[in-house]
């Protein structure tokens, strides 16, 4: 008697657990997807529909807002600059951040704690504060208005993340694996290359995505440090807040889509970082 009650109760719990699980998943998906869907609908609507309420559920495929941006001077070169700067930021933050993460996880050295704190400190100062001296320096050194100069600044912003992410990745790989490789004829470098690197590659990619997104979204430094070679965010974002509503939606859509496509393309590496097997 008591047994059947217990079984019923546990079946019940399991059922409710499943309901809770599914509804949480649905809620979280809606949390992300509904705003993007509304962004899409409003982008593809005429100005009248955008300001009306309630909103239609199906877009009416009015391309006027998007056509406006197609004819907006400098959009394509700004998009190109954004991609160049983001790519450079990705490469540089990995090239600099991953060795730092490796050193932090594998070696004991004086001032390690201070070093870790200092890396985080680069995020402690707001960019509007740093932008002025940076711009002065860049103008004097000729780095001003170049993709490389801006990528340097974005790399500085991205490095704390790439160091922290790679640090935890390296820490998750037992040193014994490397030691085993050394006993089997590898030196430090080849052991790293043949044993450690394949294991952490997905994580490295994930931290590269982080760097990409940070660079893609950064406005202030980009607006101050570039003039001819503006990135898309600097070019568009600060002009959108006072623009009419339908153009805000279309501009927002244009800013979101390339980043979404990029993240979608590399999504399996992101999943890998969170411990879900490649599928």
């Amino acid at each position, binding site marked *: 008697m008591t047994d059947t009650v217990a079984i019923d109760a546990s079946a019940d719990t399991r059922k409710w657990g499943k309901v809770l699980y599914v509804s949480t998943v649905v809620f979280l998906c809606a949390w992300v997807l509904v705003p993007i869907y509304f962004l899409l609908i409003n982008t593809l609507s005429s100005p009248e529909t955008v*300001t009306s309420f309630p909103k239609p559920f199906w877009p009416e495929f009015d391309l006027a807002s998007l056509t406006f941006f197609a004819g907006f001077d400098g959009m394509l070169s700004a998009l190109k600059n954004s991609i160049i700067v983001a790519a450079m930021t990705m490469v540089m933050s990995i090239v600099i951040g991953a060795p730092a993460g490796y050193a932090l996880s594998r070696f004991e050295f004086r001032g390690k704690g201070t070093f870790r704190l200092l890396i985080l400190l680069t995020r402690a100062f707001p960019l509007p504060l740093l932008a002025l001296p940076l711009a002065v320096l*860049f*103008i004097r050194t000729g780095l001003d208005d170049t993709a490389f100069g801006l990528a340097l600044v974005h790399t500085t912003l991205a490095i704390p993340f790439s160091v922290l992410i790679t640090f935890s990745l390296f820490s998750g790989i037992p040193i014994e694996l490397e030691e085993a490789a050394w006993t089997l004829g590898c030196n430090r470098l080849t052991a790293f290359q043949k044993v450690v690197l394949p294991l952490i590659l997905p994580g490295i990619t994930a931290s590269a995505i982080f760097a990409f997104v940070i660079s893609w979204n950064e406005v*202030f430094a980009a*607006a*101050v440090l570039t*003039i*001819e070679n503006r990135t898309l965010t600097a070019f568009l974002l600060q002009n959108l807040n006072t623009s009419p*509503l339908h153009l805000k939606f279309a501009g927002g859509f244009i800013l979101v889509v390339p980043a979404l496509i990029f993240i979608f393309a590399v999504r399996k590496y992101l999943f890998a970082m969170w411990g879900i097997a490649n599928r």
Partner: protein
Amino acid sequence: MTLHSKLFGAASGLVVACTAFAAQADVLFWSTQAKPVEEAQAMRDQVLAGFADVVDYQPNDGGPWITRLEAELQAGEGSIGVLGALHGDFSAMNPDDLMDLDELGVSAASDTFNSLGMLGTDSVQYVPWMQASYIMAANVEALPYLPEGADINALSYDELIAWTANVHEAQGRPLFGFPAGPNGLAHRFFQGYLYPSYTDGVVRTFASDEAVGAWEAFRELWSHTNPASTNFNILQEQLLSGDAWIVFDHTSRLAQAFNDRPEDFVAFPAPAGPTGRGFMPVLAGVAIPRTAPDMEAAQALIAYMLEPETQLATLRATNFFPVVDVEFPDDLPPSVRAAGAAVATMSASPDANPGLLPAGLGARGGDFNRVFVDAFHRIVLANQDIRTVLDDQAETLAAIMEDTGAPCWAPDAPSEGACPVE
């Protein structure tokens, strides 16, 4: 000469030629105005395309605008050719950083504007470029609720409050819209409209008994105001969406409503209070920073911006009105006609009480605005005692005035030295 040195010479020659070409071809127009994408596009296509050189028009937020400019000034070299900004932006700068423009020989039709452009020095620091003002606009559906005997072109604040109350009662929801959002221009309403209309001053009369009356009236108006107004920045959106039927805002922030649905909205002058119909102009100017790479091109561009045809093109592009005498053609967009008529009626009204933009505050202009916005938050949103709040804020205001030494501006009576808070 070896092949290497020949190649090197050719390459460096090419580089020099390229940079020289680039410097000559582009004048960088660094602006805080005409920022919305449509206006920026119109500035490039319709206004600046007619200039002899290529102009790179870059509109920016205030932060990046001033930071980049400061950086170029500190570095002693730069790429900005011409600055376009509001009077308040220029007055926050050191006049030494701007080239004197007396020799250019271009100026606005208004002497008041021209003297504002001197920034307290003896020479022209910026040339007035374009002007706008703040007006009222209403949905035609609100017109039947006008109080009996009220003339929409000569409203008083009491009639406005009665009108918004009628609409509130009939529609069951408050439909006055006020730009009290984070990017809204509410402080200009207090400085240029409410205070002059009730106290005939801004600074001197800040904490007067009349000011208490003004805030009481505004509190009543707020009870018929859409409470979401604390999120409204640009009222054309709420006019179009129907969230507000009667609104106050900057002419260019109402333009889209008139251009999209000209039949549905009317523009009209700001209301009058016991001391007249207070209103305030908005003035934008053009200037040249001392680090401009090509002075001649920059000067030519400023002269071009002040030509009557360019001024009309600018009007179409930005809904800012010319500062020089022009003849208006008949085919202007609906927003320009509506706003132009409202501004003209406002300034020609017998009880007109025009105020000037705050002047002489330098970098403290933002703090000055803050005094009014804080008073609004405390009195209207937090419902604190008006007298207490005004006395508190008066101290802050007095400190700002003493700190900057700014003399009074209209409608305050002139002062010797810093404008006193009485």
